[in-house]
């Protein structure tokens, strides 16, 4: 890629949730802004814009990454996955989304896309995580509603479902 001038908009093409997409961005445009404003993929949320809150977490070539700490130009040619790609085309929720729903793991929902994309990689790489594994894994995702316990319950339940087991009981009383 030759040098891109600061005021030039450059064509950027990548795979987003299995589909080829393209748009134009100046070098300084953040990937998260490109997703939202250029592509209209507003499922990925913008929080702190310096990598701390985790709301903008997406998958880049399979690995969870902060979309606020990447430039749009850096995504060129890569494979990206965002929260929009989790549910099936008929609207059926993924096991992780379903567990979030059942365990009440969200309230306002602002942090949820980042948590889903983070936990997706965690459970793929470690199909049988401990509660502590999940706590450490989501230490980079800030949620101000739930107090995290429901998110941890959901992650463990989703991992169990993906292992083919019956998830732990929903009853907590």
């Amino acid at each position: 890629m030759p040098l891109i001038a600061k005021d030039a908009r450059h064509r950027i093409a990548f795979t987003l949730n299995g589909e080829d997409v393209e748009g134009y961005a100046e070098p300084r445009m953040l990937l998260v802004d490109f997703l939202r404003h250029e592509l209209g993929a507003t499922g990925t949320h913008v929080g702190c814009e310096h990598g701390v809150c985790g709301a903008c977490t997406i998958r880049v070539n399979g690995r969870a990454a902060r979309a606020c700490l990447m430039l749009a130009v850096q995504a060129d040619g890569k494979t990206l996955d965002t929260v929009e790609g989790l549910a099936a085309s008929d609207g059926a929720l993924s096991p992780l989304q379903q567990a979030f729903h059942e365990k009440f793991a969200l309230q306002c929902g602002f942090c949820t896309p980042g948590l889903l994309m983070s936990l997706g990689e965690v459970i793929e790489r470690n199909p049988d995580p401990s509660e502590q594994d999940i706590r450490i894994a989501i230490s980079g995702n800030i949620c101000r509603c739930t107090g995290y316990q429901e998110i941890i319950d959901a992650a463990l339940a989703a991992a169990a479902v993906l292992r083919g087991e019956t998830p732990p009981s929903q009853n907590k009383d």
Partner: protein
Amino acid sequence: MKPAAFDYLRPADLDEALDTLHEAGSDAKVMAGGQSLMPMLNMRLLTPSVIVDISDLEALDRIEAVNGHIEIGAAATQASLGEWPELAAKSPLLAEALPNIGHFQTRNRGTVCGSLAHSDPSSELPLCLATLGGGVVLQSKAGSRTVAASDFQTDMLTTDCGPQEMLVAARFPVAEPGAGYAFAEIARRHGDFAIVALAAMVTGETIRLGVGGVADTPQVREWQGLKGGALDDALNAFAWEMGGSDDVHATARYRREIVRRIGRKVIAEAKDAADR
């Protein structure tokens, strides 16, 4: 919080990157994983005129054990070091320190050399490099040079890397036979910046302790045959010598207490590891 405008170059090879640095000098900034640089751009603490993005340079994406060192290229991520099959055997200290670096999402892109080049005072990798007595390779169009960790990090967020130079590789000494290593970090939450981070190496009667997060750069002391009260006295003197200050995260007194108490603990753990 959006970056100021800059030109962007994804060089085809190292030579093109070094050519650009040669011409642009301090107006250019090298970006590898961007996990420290991007926040600084977003907050406009830095406004370079050109970003040289080396993250996709495969020649720099390497981790290998050569000549008694683990040599890590500038594009190798912290995650790939953590997944390197030989890590636990070749460097127990790095293996123990790595999970403390940020979060797994930032380690997926953040690079080892980028952490060293950024040189945050509380950063784990500069502390490990200093404690192990490693070094870095700096390259420019004029040639390359190797700089010891103790000479590389000169001040808070400041290194000996010149404006036309790039940190192309880090060299961490491979674990010595019979030596024991241990790492500990005190932070409010997992993944936060360390209030104090400590790295210990014990070989026979020799105790080496590195401390990050107190002074402006990692500090390392080495003692011979100290035990009991004498070791406590040495740790206390070390804690005062570093001259830490109060900030929003902790008081200077609290930091000294961590150095005294957790210092004692990591040294004991390193000694246990050496005896195994």
